């Protein structure tokens, strides 16, 4: 049985203004003890998952690359030593262009990491600064060139649209630069102002100059048009790739496949259970030190919830819901469960159906939430 691993590095040099993920600046002093704790969790969990073959690994954050080369190496070695790793593993590490150097990238590459995901967000230096990034445009470009030189052949970058003061021209430029850099994969997200972020506070004070709904929509349309034009096909709502470079790990989230999260705030799914670790870094370290479980949350999905999640997650992908698979997995006829809503969603031109698949239309992708919540049965 295959397994995905997610490893969380909850450190950043500086917290971005839009970010509400579990990552923290100014706790560098905890880095070493965190890695020690993480390694102990890796050892413990590795023993429990010896029957699984790990075929995707994703070291995310936070900013994994804020750790020293030595600490990163310790984590990677612990994973390799304690889990059975598939020879064709997809091993991703998230990198910030501002926290890498040649030595770090070489070590990562030689240790087995074969995919880098760069958080760029925008190739416009002014905008980058405005959203709290620590790198400028040139650093981002240099980082990708360097990664290629070191030998990485699978590089992804993250872009954002709908940023304060961003114009359509800015976005176009960023897309053009990303394409020129010939990366294999691009994730692109619309900004959403989340509670508790710097942006939320600015918005409260009316100091956040977000693009209008119309401009935001035009940006979305631009992305959906430009990236496929440039050879990146949209295999998931927010993800585009050259053929064959779709992120296998990312797809696991949508394809109902098992993944194990390691580290603070890491989430896991082993059907029918979802669970996650404590998100406070200190607490995580302490629990591991006291040989207590780092788990904070666990839920067992019952019949209907399993079905619902299966559907709204699968619908995020281009392929959509495989009806035969659904019927076999749940021992129920898909149309008995959802027939009535499928009809109305088709009328609204949000869904399409071929012989064995139900999937979102382009319009459906744009209004994904409207469709997904229809799949909740209660």
């Amino acid at each position: 049985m295959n397994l995905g691993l997610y490893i969380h590095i909850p450190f950043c040099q500086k917290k971005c203004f839009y970010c509400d993920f579990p990552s923290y600046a100014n706790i560098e002093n905890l880095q070493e003890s965190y890695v020690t704790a993480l390694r102990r969790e890796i050892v413990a969990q590795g023993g429990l998952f010896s029957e699984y073959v790990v075929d995707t690994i994703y070291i995310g954050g936070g900013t994994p690359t804020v750790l020293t080369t030595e600490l990163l190496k310790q984590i990677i070695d612990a994973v390799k030593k304690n889990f059975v790793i598939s020879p064709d593993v997809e091993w991703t590490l998230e990198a910030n262009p501002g926290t890498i150097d040649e030595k770090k990238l070489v070590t990562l590459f030689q240790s087995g990491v074969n995919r880098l995901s760069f958080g760029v967000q925008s190739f416009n230096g002014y905008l980058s600064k405005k959203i709290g990034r620590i790198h400028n445009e040139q650093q981002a470009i240099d980082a990708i060139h360097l990664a290629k030189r070191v030998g990485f052949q699978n590089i992804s970058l993250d872009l954002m649209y709908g940023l304060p003061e961003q114009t359509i021209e800015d976005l176009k430029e960023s897309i053009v630069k990303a394409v020129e850099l010939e990366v294999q994969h691009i994730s692109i997200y619309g900004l959403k102002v989340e509670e508790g972020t710097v942006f939320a506070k600015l918005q409260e004070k009316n100091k956040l100059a977000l693009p209008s709904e119309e401009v935001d929509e035009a940006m979305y349309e631009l992305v959906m048009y430009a990236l496929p034009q440039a050879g990146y096909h949209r295999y998931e709502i927010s993800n585009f790739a050259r053929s064959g470079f779709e992120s296998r790990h990312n797809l696991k989230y949508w394809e109902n496949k098992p993944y194990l999260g390691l580290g603070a705030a890491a989430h896991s799914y082993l059907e029918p259970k979802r669970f996650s670790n404590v998100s406070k870094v200190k607490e995580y370290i302490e629990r591991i030190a006291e040989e207590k479980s780092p788990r904070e949350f666990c839920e067992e999905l019952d019949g209907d919830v399993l079905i619902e999640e299966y559907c709204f997650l699968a619908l995020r992908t281009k392929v959509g819901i495989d009806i035969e698979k659904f019927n076999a997995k749940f021992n129920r006829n898909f149309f008995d469960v959802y027939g009535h809503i499928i009809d109305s969603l088709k009328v609204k031109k949000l869904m399409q159906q071929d012989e064995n698949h139900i999937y979102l239309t382009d319009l459906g992708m744009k209004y994904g939430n409207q469709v997904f919540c229809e799949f909740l049965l209660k």
Partner: protein
Amino acid sequence: MQTKNIRNFSIIAHIDHGKSTIADRLIEYTGTLSKREMEAQVLDQMDLERERGITIKAQAVRLDYVGKDGEMYQINLIDTPGHVDFTYEVSRSLAACEGALLVVDAAQGIEAQTLANVYLALENDLEIIPVINKIDLPSAEPEKVKQEIEDVIGLDTSDAVLASAKVGIGIEEILDAIVAKVPAPNGDAGAPLSALIFDSHFDAYKGVIAYVRVMDGAIKSGMKLKMIATNKEFEVTEVGCFRPALTNVTELGTGQVGFVAGSIKNVKDVRVGDTITDANRPVAKALPGYRGINPMVYCGLYPVDSSDYDNLKDALEKLQLNDASLLFEPETSIALGFGYRCGFLGLLHMDVIQERLEREYNLSLITTAPSVIYHVYKTNGEMIKIDNPSHLPPVTEIDHIDEPYVRATVIVPNDYVGAVMELSQEKRGEFKDMKYLDVNRVMVTYHVPLSEIIYDYFDRLKSSTRGYASLDYEITDYQTSKLVKLDILLNGDAVDALSVIVHKDKAAQRGRQLAEKLKGIIPQQMFEIPIQAAVGNKVIARETVRAMRKDVLAKCYGGDITRKRKLLEKQKEGKKRMKSVGSVEIPQEAFMAILKID
């Protein structure tokens, strides 16, 4: 108990003038309930009554009291509601009594509603005992209030009881006054049974329980009884009195107040106002009923979830058992599906019923805007009564429309007279009379369309007089008005449940306000939604709910699906509270928007 030692009375008071507190003190003082058993306002049994501090249902309690003459008296208190909407409940309580306490706040003086109920009691020939309550308040002016009672009502107040129920002053005096002044019932114990049903409630185990006042004869367990109006017969399984819990007794004699149960399953068999008699020895004639019930306000009640339709019906039937003034019949709306057209005594009554349905029966409801009954005279000479704007015939078939008018009586400090007059004029009111109750309190009377009263007159009256005004109204007549139907079109389709009948001169303004308000209530959807207000084919206001540009969840942090799911659940929850009308999803509040525009 000899009839001469029985006293039956009720209490008339404005909200907050201390009626329930007096009732509590009487119960406590006579030892009917020990202190330990007392719960403040024991008679207000519904949660809703306690929360709002109002009495909705009439309740009863029997008190035993040894009078100054050393004799034991049985005193029955029949509690009455104090709000303008519940005049009907008051009238039926009064029909079971020989006397009434008129409770007036020593600091506030007489309010409009008190007046209406006193007149009702006088019509019923009840002996009225004035009680000036809250005399402990620093602002109390008992002498001034006494004078006001003499001037306005014409009652002699030389024997008025000065009381403070809160601190327990005057309670014994009240009891003594009841014994001394309220006449004993004058029924004939030897005559065939005749008892008036003044209320009822449904008990899951005992069936319908009728609250009765025995006029002649007596009721005993095992007797076979007959209800004159419904012609139903039943055998008495239980007979008893209120202490205030239902307590069985061997018989209810002439003049006594109590309850009777007899495995009556169908709530409709027991009609409040009907007369119960002995099936083997019936009286020929029913007791005179009392003021009939005439719902004045109608609205549609629809279940949000259409599968709740039968539950709504059951709930309405159960409520009707305890509230004979509630009327309902099935109706269908294109927008809302199957529901009920319900008739209420007024807005508070409507509010209370709606809240009880939601709270006690766990129903989620959509209420349409309230309407009065219009008399529509058609060009073919026919007159039809319309209580639902969407049933109005086409304009070409209408000759003219009459609407109900009320005499609205407002009592207010003289500083606010200007505000009351301004508001009443704006509400198409015609000035009738103005009278000074004392140097600074004024009673203003207007002739106003009822539709204006139920729209927002009361709310605005309260706010423009800082809560000082009290209002009472009664329907006087029908008058012809220039009325038109204002339709609301969403995405080009008229939504029947949003139509209202308004005065022609106000249609444009109402249309604009309504469209604007709906714009704020209807959430963005995938397409642009034009909101139009129209009279006939003429669009008089237009707003647009802009299209939702996109709606998509972005980044998923490290496989945190639970969070994504919660967001979707929240979104779904919001959708559930909406009603799909054509292609547009409309939140419940939209249907009430017509009621209140601020």
